[in-house]
């Protein structure tokens, strides 16, 4: 990468990044947003983000091979969150009482007729080719993720974002395989319905 294409956020090799800069504030905020989605305790989310930022700062040159500090920092955060989920003494705290009382209604209710066929035609999504379309779609997806019941969203993120196998998720959260499958299915169907509805109004999904 030559100096001309070097992004603003990227420190020059051998130099410490400027942590007071706006870009760092934004990076921290972005990491926090993801961390908060995964762990329900705000203080813990803060800690995990802090640790990730420290890891970035300690080795500002270590992200070679990653596209940007941002991607690298997200990768570090993912590891920290995955470690947290895997630490045995934390296990029981992953599922809260608030989760138990949450509205976890089936997002597919009303979607099918008695034969199990779709009542309305399912729209076709085009594979987003342009970066701008991808970004739009990603922000729609994030909005939709927040609308899922929080435990459903968390299971989806453990599977898709952290890349946990379903067997591991079931074990960590003490769910049956059947339950795990159902939660993931509802998460995905909830997301696609929300994204269809959002796409319809923003025009970002066809």
């Amino acid at each position, binding site marked *: 990468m030559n100096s001309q294409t070097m*992004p*603003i*956020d*990227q420190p020059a090799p051998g130099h410490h990044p400027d942590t007071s800069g706006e*870009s760092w504030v*934004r990076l921290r905020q*972005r*990491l926090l947003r*993801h961390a908060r989605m995964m762990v329900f305790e705000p203080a813990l989310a803060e800690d995990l983000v802090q640790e990730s930022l420290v890891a970035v700062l300690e080795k500002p040159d270590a992200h070679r091979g990653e*596209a*940007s*500090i*941002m*991607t690298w920092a*997200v990768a570090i*955060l993912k590891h920290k969150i995955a470690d947290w989920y895997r630490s045995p003494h934390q296990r029981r705290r992953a599922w809260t009482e608030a989760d138990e009382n949450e509205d976890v209604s089936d997002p*597919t209710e009303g*979607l*099918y007729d008695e*034969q*199990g*066929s*779709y009542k309305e*035609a*399912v*729209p*076709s*999504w085009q*594979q987003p080719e342009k*970066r701008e379309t*991808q*970004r739009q*779609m*990603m*922000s729609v*997806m*994030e909005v939709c*993720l927040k609308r899922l019941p929080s435990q459903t969203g968390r299971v*989806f*993120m453990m*599977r*898709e*974002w952290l*890349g946990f*196998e*379903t067997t591991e998720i079931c074990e960590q959260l003490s769910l049956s395989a059947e339950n795990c*499958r159902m939660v*993931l*299915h509802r998460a*995905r*169907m909830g*997301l*696609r319905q929300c*994204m*269809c509805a959002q796409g319809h109004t923003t025009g970002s999904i066809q």
Partner: protein
Amino acid sequence: MTLLHSCKKAAELLSQSLDEPLDMVDKLRLRVHLSMCGNCRNVEEQLNLIHQMGAQIGTLDFGDDQDVPSIP
């Protein structure tokens, strides 16, 4: 082997197939159903895209601020 008529069941199998290999019978029933059902093919496409995007959360969502490093 009975035919799979229900799109509801097909969607469940589509989701399951993203997490674990389906057994031969389910795989075949799903394939036959998809070959006859455009709605389910669209759902398949959507679920695949959601699956792909899930792994990329946090690395693509720059949205408003354009001066964040981009991914080549």
